[in-house]
């Protein structure tokens, strides 16, 4: 019984090691599998993976309208205080006061690209962009205002 386990252990070990070597051997002989991007050289034709996360942006349509209601769900979801939302009160045509977004402040220097704010957003107003060339000469340039000047909330978004 002991000997049977001993021998099956040896064979199992050899088989699993050979399985691993087969995979690395496959990679060694198949250069098309190489995923390295030669970054500064291929700036034009560089293709990033779909799920690559570079920074948070707010989507604006051609009428300079966004979908942000100023609900601060993203601000609450952010684990390290990257987002600060300043709200204001708009007057609706019926004369009622309505909460709306004034300024969406985004601290890129604090952001870890964890995607929690995008998942928290009920109206899909923000998303992750793929731009990753963020170097600037002054730290203050990394604090961004995401809603464009003069933009307002799209009709029908609650």
């Amino acid at each position: 019984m002991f000997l049977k386990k001993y021998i099956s252990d040896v064979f199992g070990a050899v088989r699993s090691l050979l399985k691993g070597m087969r995979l690395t051997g496959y990679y060694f002989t198949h250069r098309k599998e190489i995923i390295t991007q030669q970054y500064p050289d291929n700036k034009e034709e560089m293709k990033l993976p779909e799920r690559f996360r570079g920074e948070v942006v707010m989507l604006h349509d051609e009428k300079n309208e966004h979908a942000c209601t100023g609900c601060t769900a993203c601000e609450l979801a952010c684990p390290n205080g990257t987002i600060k939302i300043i709200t204001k009160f708009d007057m609706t045509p019926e004369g009622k006061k309505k909460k709306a977004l004034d300024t969406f402040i985004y601290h890129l220097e604090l952001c870890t690209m964890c995607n929690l704010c995008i998942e928290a957003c009920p109206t899909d107003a923000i998303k992750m962009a793929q731009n990753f060339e963020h170097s600037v000469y002054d730290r203050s340039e990394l604090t961004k205002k995401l809603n464009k000047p003069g933009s307002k909330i799209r009709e029908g978004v609650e």
Partner: protein
Amino acid sequence: MLSIENITHSIDAWLNSMFHPTVVLLVESLIVGICAISLFAVLGLVLVLMERKVSAYMQIRLGPNRVGPGGTLQTVADTLKLAMKEGLTPDGADKFLFNLAPFVVIIVAMLILAPVAFAKGTQIWDLNIGVLYISAVSSLSVIGILMAGWASNNKYSLLGAMRSGAQIVSYELSAGISVISIVVLTGSLRIQDIIASQQDGWWLFKGHIPALLSFVIFIIAVTAETNRAPFDLAEAESELTAGFHTEYSGMKFALFFLAEYVNIFIVCAIAATLYLGGWMPLHIGHWTGFNQVMDYIPSSLWFMGKTFFLIFVIMWFRWTFPRLRIDQLLNLEWKYLLPISMVNLLLMTLIAIEGWHF
């Protein structure tokens, strides 16, 4: 015909016609020494580059590709950088031993080079106990490693060195038994005899399954002896920073690094000599036509090809397998490799006595 054998013989004849025999001996020793040192330097550069490229391709990367065409000068640049760095000796270190250790390691590596047959008739020293000499000298390198670990006055260095000691002492056994199983077949310890006995086929094929088993065990054991992954506990970057050479910098570090790669080359050369026929071309039984075609390939190319193939296999191990824990490492040796290789040696002896091998 131009071959290394003819070149060495004509140099020898020319020197003998010009000078007194004692002078000839001195000059020839000097030439051999220079050749060995330059071989070391070239091997270091080539093997480090090969390791980086192989590892890159196995990890779906590109590897060094900026310095020189295709990154071929990367290791030259690295060596220049290391040569220009300061060789720092820590304050609390035992200065004499600390500075001696890298030289001990590299000199041991140089000593094992002596009985290796590089091509037909090209061998520094064909002594009649070649294989025994190799296994005796190769176990000396642990002294250099222990010296480095102890003299560094650093707990990581000492731990790495102690692990290395335990490892080399245990794996010497199964490496030695694997070597003996080939010695049983050939009946000689001399390297030239072992190569000559493989004229009509390599031992790996002639010795049936026991030869294959002892070849596998030998490769595993020498991987452990050279402190390569998956047995690189002595260095274990994740636990011991760099093990016994944590405190070394500059050229002294480069010597350790060089010794590691030269040791790999040497153990692969020995494995090629014992199991794959050294410089002997691939001969299959009585196929004279096929054998003659194989004879046209120079013997040095055969030797280098086999050695570099084995080096590639050992690199393949390194970039595939995860590192073993110290208890797993010793389990593998004492519970698996040693019993298996002992039974294997008995089988091999039976084969040799009964003459079942081809």
